[in-house]
């Protein structure tokens, strides 16, 4: 069995599972945020009317709550949702509620690794489609709708159809000017946004072994854009070190068997990778940066669970050090812990000196919520994950997706720019 199959087998108490088997799995961790939380509360209200007991959760210690989409509260309605969420966690005894303005908080998928909330081998579900991100720690992680999350909160289990696995092998390290974001864009361009539909996307090979945990998180994050059920990397010592430095204990490593089977294996040579962008209006609409259309950008946005982890900010700082931005540029670290490190290590000063606006952790404009959404006809280069029509604001705005290196280089020139071509 491969790693996804092994995790699902163990979670469902079976010796063995195969793709397309339906299993009823025990869930280890559950997450909701300020959009899915109120959605779940609504489902609970409906169940209560049907006479179903929703007084207790299956295990409040396994649940955590993030405030990320519309925080710091964007308006009256989102402020009310935050109150609703706080009442919910209080009533159900959920202690892991990361509140803005009260220490560590941030984007849910960032907290999952920054706070070591999920461990290798666990089954983790969340009320958000990018829950796939956390598979980079070697867990089975996937997003669910509100009703399914409500069910898990009450029962601690849910059924899954065991997915087929696509294996993406990266031979050799990526060059310095290429990031994990470029690699996942390349893959989505190759297999299309439907290519991973209800499949596991697993990443391996020497290039992945060389990669930092944060880079692997970027890869798994955007398996969602390929339609995948989950993204996953077999955990190694790097994951153990990463999680134990954040307070996790009892980390055991789980790997696929030697005779693990994959539906299809794709091979890539690290040295051949180039900086890429996804043009409007689909993450599969890929172009090499050096062949990108010459458009006048209005904005560069470095944020989100995809592109505002610590190493993403380091990459942006490498470019912005001693330079000035030519277009509006925003950098929003994905969590307070990252924000703090960026301050301690001098990154914030580099950003502010370059003219960048540094914002608080939030999903912000990635999902068009607030904090710098786009006007009609505005064009943005962004380290985020989706560039559907209107995703970041007005339905007639445009978003190009890129790595933090490319987004920072483009901020300096005002045009889509390969970091190698900066003077």
């Amino acid at each position, binding site marked *: 069995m491969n790693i996804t199959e092994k*995790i699902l087998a*163990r*979670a*469902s*108490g079976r010796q063995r599972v195969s793709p397309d088997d339906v299993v009823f799995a*025990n869930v*280890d961790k559950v997450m909701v945020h300020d*959009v*899915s939380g*109120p*959605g779940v*509360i*609504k489902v609970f*209200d*409906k*169940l209560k009317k*049907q006479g*179903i007991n929703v007084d207790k959760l299956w295990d409040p210690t396994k649940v955590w709550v993030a405030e990320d*989409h*519309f925080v710091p509260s964007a*308006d009256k*309605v*989102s402020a009310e*949702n935050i109150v*609703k969420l706080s009442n919910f966690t209080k009533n159900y005894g959920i202690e892991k509620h990361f509140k803005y303005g009260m220490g560590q908080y941030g984007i849910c998928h960032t907290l999952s690794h920054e706070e070591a909330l999920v*461990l290798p*081998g*666990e*089954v983790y579900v969340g*009320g*958000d*489609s990018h829950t796939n991100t956390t598979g980079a720690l070697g867990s089975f992680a996937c*997003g*669910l*709708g*509100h*009703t*399914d999350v*409500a*069910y898990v909160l009450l029962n601690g289990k849910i059924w899954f159809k065991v997915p087929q696995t696509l294996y993406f092998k990266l031979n050799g390290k990526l060059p310095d000017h290429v990031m994990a974001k470029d690699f996942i864009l390349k893959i989505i361009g190759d297999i299309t*946004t*439907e290519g991973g*539909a*209800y499949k596991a996307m697993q990443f391996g090979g020497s290039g992945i072994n060389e990669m930092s945990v944060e880079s692997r998180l970027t890869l798994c994050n955007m398996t969602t854009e390929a*339609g995948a*059920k989950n993204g996953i990397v077999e955990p190694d010592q790097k994951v153990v070190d990463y999680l134990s430095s954040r307070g996790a204990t*009892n980390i*055991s490593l789980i790997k696929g068997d030697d005779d693990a089977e994959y539906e299809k294996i794709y091979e890539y040579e690290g040295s051949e990778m180039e900086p890429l962008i996804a043009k409007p209006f*689909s993450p599969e609409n890929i172009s090499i940066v050096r062949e990108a259309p010459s458009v006048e950008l209005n904005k560069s946005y470095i944020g989100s669970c995809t592109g505002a982890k610590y190493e993403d900010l380091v990459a942006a700082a490498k470019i912005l050090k001693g330079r000035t931005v030519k277009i509006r540029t925003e950098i929003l670290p994905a969590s307070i812990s990252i924000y703090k490190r960026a301050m301690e290590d001098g990154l914030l000063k580099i950003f502010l000196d370059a003219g960048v606006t540094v914002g608080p952790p939030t999903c912000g404009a990635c*999902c*068009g*919520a607030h904090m710098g959404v786009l006007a009609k006809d505005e064009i943005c280069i962004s380290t985020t994950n*989706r560039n*559907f*029509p*209107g*995703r970041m604001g007005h*339905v007639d705005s445009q978003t190009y997706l890129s790595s933090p290196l490319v987004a920072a280089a483009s901020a300096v020139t005002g045009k889509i720019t390969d970091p190698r071509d900066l003077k």
Partner: protein
Amino acid sequence: MQSFTKVKTLITPLDKVNVDTDQIVPKQFLKLVQKSGFGKFLFYNWRYDDNEQLKSDFVLNDLKYKNSKILVAGDNFGCGSSREHAVWALQDYGFSVVISTSFADIFYSNCFKNGILPIILDSKTVEKLQQETTEVEVDLKNQIIKTSSQTIPFDIDSHKKKILLEGLDDIAHTLLYEKQISEFEKQSKIPSVL
């Protein structure tokens, strides 16, 4: 949940591919969690202009389709975020069937929790249906779609069919077996993970 057996209406042809959940319900409405009423936000940016007036060139605003319950759209319908509001909006607006060549996984699953029947057909059939100008009948029990000129069979998982026909969502259906479940749980020794 209401049980689903048959619907017979005109088809609303939505000639777009990769319709993501943000096109179905834009993010600004996600903050709202009132029980119903999401229908008015359905395809908001396509239905309304900047002054919140109905756009005459969008298919949903054609009065002909006012009572249509069947939406037929292009590939990869419902991709993007996991927001269940997308399904709530389709249902509240009045749709009970969505037909496409493929659906995003979470959206597909959310449909069955809210009494909407998603049907997957090949692209030729979808194109043909989009041109259908007379009423079409979707018969879940017999798994067929009847147009004026042909009968099209469709596949659906037997469990999912059952819950729609009986008007049970997954949770209500599970509760029918409450006794057996607690019996099983008493005997089963499923180890917890790690």
